[in-house]
C-alpha cells in the first residue's frame, strides 16, 4: 500500500518506478513531493519540467502538470512555461549530464535571468540511462565506461557554478539526509528567484560498481560521513573540513529583482495589461 503522501502526490498506477534497486533518485523524488505537499501548494498550479536521463523520469510519476522534454532543455522549456504563466510554480528535475553538460548553457542563463524556477539536479555522478559513461560531475580520476583509464576531466561544483552565474539561491542536499533535503527544497521553492539545488544521489549500479564504492547502503553511509551542514561548518576550523562536502543552503541573494516581475512591469508600461 502506498503511503498517504505517495497517494496524494504520485501517479500511483505508474509505480513502481524504473530506477535500479538502491538508486537514490526515488528518495530525492519523494523529497520534492514532500516539500510541495508541506508548502500546501495547489497541485493544479505546480509544473514539473524534466529533461532526459534517469533523473528526468521522475516527472512522469508525479501527479502534477508534468513536462518531460528533450535532453538538456528542461530549463529552457521551463523558462517558457514560467514566463507564459507566472502564477505557476515551476520546478525542474534534471540530472548532472542533462543540466551541466548538454544543458549547461541553459543552466547558466537561467541563473543569470533570475527567473523564479526551482531546479533540482539529481546528481549521480554518471550517465546512468546509457550505462555508465563519465559525466561533468564524475570526480577526477574515477572511472566510467568511456573513461576506462580514469577520468582526466575535472568536475563541476554545481552550486558554485550556479552561484557564479547569478542564481540567487543555491544549496546541496543528499539522498541520505531526508529531513535536511525536504527543508532545503521547501526554502528553494519559497525563494522568489532562480534557485538551484544539487541533490546528491547514489548510483550503485554504474558509478558505484565501476569505482568500487560498495552497495547503496555503503554509498549512503559515505554521504552521511562526508557531508556537513554549511551552518555547522561555518563554526569549525578549516582542518576539520578537509575532504568534507558542504550541504544545506549555500548562498542566497535577495537583492535582484525576479525576471517575470520585471517583464510584467514592461507590459504595464506598454499598456499591454489593459
Amino acid at each position: 500500500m502506498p503511503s498517504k503522501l505517495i497517494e496524494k502526490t504520485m501517479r500511483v498506477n505508474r509505480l513502481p518506478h524504473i530506477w535500479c534497486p538502491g538508486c537514490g533518485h526515488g528518495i530525492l523524488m519523494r523529497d520534492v513531493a514532500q516539500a510541495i505537499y508541506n508548502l500546501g501548494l495547489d497541485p493544479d498550479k505546480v509544473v514539473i519540467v524534466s529533461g532526459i536521463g534517469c533523473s528526468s523520469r521522475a516527472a512522469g510519476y508525479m501527479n502534477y502538470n508534468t513536462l518531460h522534454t528533450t535532453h538538456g532543455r528542461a530549463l529552457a522549456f521551463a523558462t517558457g512555461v514560467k514566463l507564459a504563466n507566472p502564477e505557476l510554480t515551476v520546478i525542474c528535475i534534471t540530472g548532472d549530464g542533462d543540466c551541466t553538460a548538454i544543458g549547461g548553457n541553459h543552466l547558466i542563463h537561467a541563473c543569470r535571468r533570475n527567473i523564479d524556477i526551482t531546479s533540482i539536479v539529481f546528481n549521480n555522478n554518471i550517465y546512468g540511462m546509457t550505462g555508465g559513461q563519465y559525466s561533468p560531475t564524475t570526480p577526477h580520476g574515477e572511472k566510467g565506461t568511456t573513461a576506462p583509464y580514469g577520468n582526466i576531466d575535472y568536475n563541476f561544483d554545481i552550486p558554485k557554478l550556479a552561484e557564479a552565474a547569478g542564481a540567487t539561491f543555491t544549496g546541496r542536499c543528499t539522498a541520505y539526509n531526508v529531513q535536511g533535503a525536504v527543508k532545503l527544497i521547501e526554502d528553494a521553492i519559497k525563494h522568489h528567484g532562480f534557485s538551484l539545488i544539487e541533490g546528491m544521489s547514489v548510483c550503485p549500479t554504474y558509478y558505484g560498481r565501476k569505482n568500487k564504492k560498495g552497495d547503496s547502503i555503503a554509498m549512503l553511509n559515505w554521504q552521511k560521513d562526508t557531508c556537513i551542514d554549511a551552518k555547522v561548518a561555518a563554526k569549525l576550523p578549516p582542518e576539520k573540513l578537509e575532504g568534507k562536502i558542504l550541504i544545506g543552503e549555500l548562498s542566497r541573494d535577495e537583492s535582484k529583482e525576479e525576471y517575470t516581475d520585471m517583464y510584467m512591469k514592461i507590459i504595464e508600461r506598454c499598456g499591454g495589461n489593459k
Partner: protein
Amino acid sequence: MSDKRFQLLQGNEAVVEGAIAAGMRFYAGYPITPSTEIAERSALRLPQVGGKFVQMEDEIGGIAAALGASVAGLKAMTATSGPGFSLKQENIGYAAIAEIPIVIVDVQREGPSTGLPTSPSQGDLMQSKWGTHGDHPVIVISPSSVQECYTETVRAFNMAERFRVPVIFLMDEIIGHLREGCEMIPPEELTISNRRIDRQFNGTLAYAVQEGNYVPEFAPFGKGDHFNVTGLFHDLDGFPTNDNQQTDSQERRLLDKITKRRDRIQKWEEVECDDCETMIVCFGGTARAVQGAMDEAKKQDFFKIGMFRPITVWPFPEEALNKIIRSNKHLRQIIVAEHNDGQMVLEVQRIVEGRVPVIKLGKIDGTTITPEEVLKKIEEEY
C-alpha cells in the same frame, strides 16, 4: 506603432503583425540574419498586447521556451534561418510527437553551414519536411508577398492549433526583406482557430481522440488536468510505453491527422495553367521572378506560360497538380524554378511520373533567379 489599415512593411515585420492578429502572445528566439527583424518587432510589439518576448541563449532554447509557453496556453512562435533551423530540428520532432502547437519561421539563406547569411535561397525545402529524425507530421507554408506574410502566418497559427503540430513558415530572404504594401486585416475579420482549452479530462485520457477524429483536445497546464507530456512514445494517458501496438497506433494517428486531412491544409495558386504550354512550378520569392517572366512573355508574343505555386508546400498540393496535367492538353513541359540545386523538382517528378518532361531551373550562387533566366530556360528546353 501606426494603426493604419494599409502599411508599408517588410515581410519579416508582416509575419509578426499577422502572428499577433492570429493570437500569438509568446515569442522566444535567438538573433540570426536574415530573420532578426522578426525577433526585434516581436520584442517591441508583444508587451503592447500583453504578450511575452524572451531572447534565449541559443536557438535550441528559443524553440524550447516557445514550446513551454505553448503548453502553458499561449500561442507561440520562434524564428530563425538555416543554421538555427538545423539546431531547432530535435525540438520540432518533440513538438510533433507531443502534439504541441507552434509556428517556426525559417527565413532561408544560401548554402550549408554559415553559407551566405544575407543572400536568398530556398535550400531548406527538404529539411523543412525531413529535418527532424523519424517519421513525423509537419505542415510547411511558404509566402510570396508581404501580404501573404501577414495572412499566411494567420493560417500557420490556425493549422498549428487545429492539428496540434509544428507549422513551419518557410520564407526566403527575398520576401523577408522586401517592403511592400500590407493590409493589416484585424482579427475580427479573420478566421482564427483556437485550441480547446476549456475541457477538463476528468480522468479520461489526455491523448485519446473521439471516433473519426485525429486530434486530441488540449487543456493547458494550470487548468486542473495533471497530464504528462513526453517525447517518448506514450499511451493515451501521455505516459511512456514500449508497447509496439500502442507505438504503431500513435505514430499512425500522428501521420494520418495530416495526410487524411490534407485537403484542409493544401493551398496553392494557379495562374493561366489551363492552356499553357510551359508550366512553371515555384514557391516563395521565386514566384515573383516567374510572374515577372510572364509579364515579359506577354509583351513579346512568347510561348504560353502558366505558373503553379504551392503555398502549402508540405503536404504538397499533389491532387491539384495532377488535375492540371490531366486536363491541360497543350502542356509540353514543366519547369521547376527554385533557389536550390533541385529539391521541389524531385517531388514534381514523383507526381508527374513522366507524363510530361519535368526540368529543373536551380540557382545556388546567392543571387536571385531573374525573369530573363526563366524565359531563356523555357526557350532552351522547348
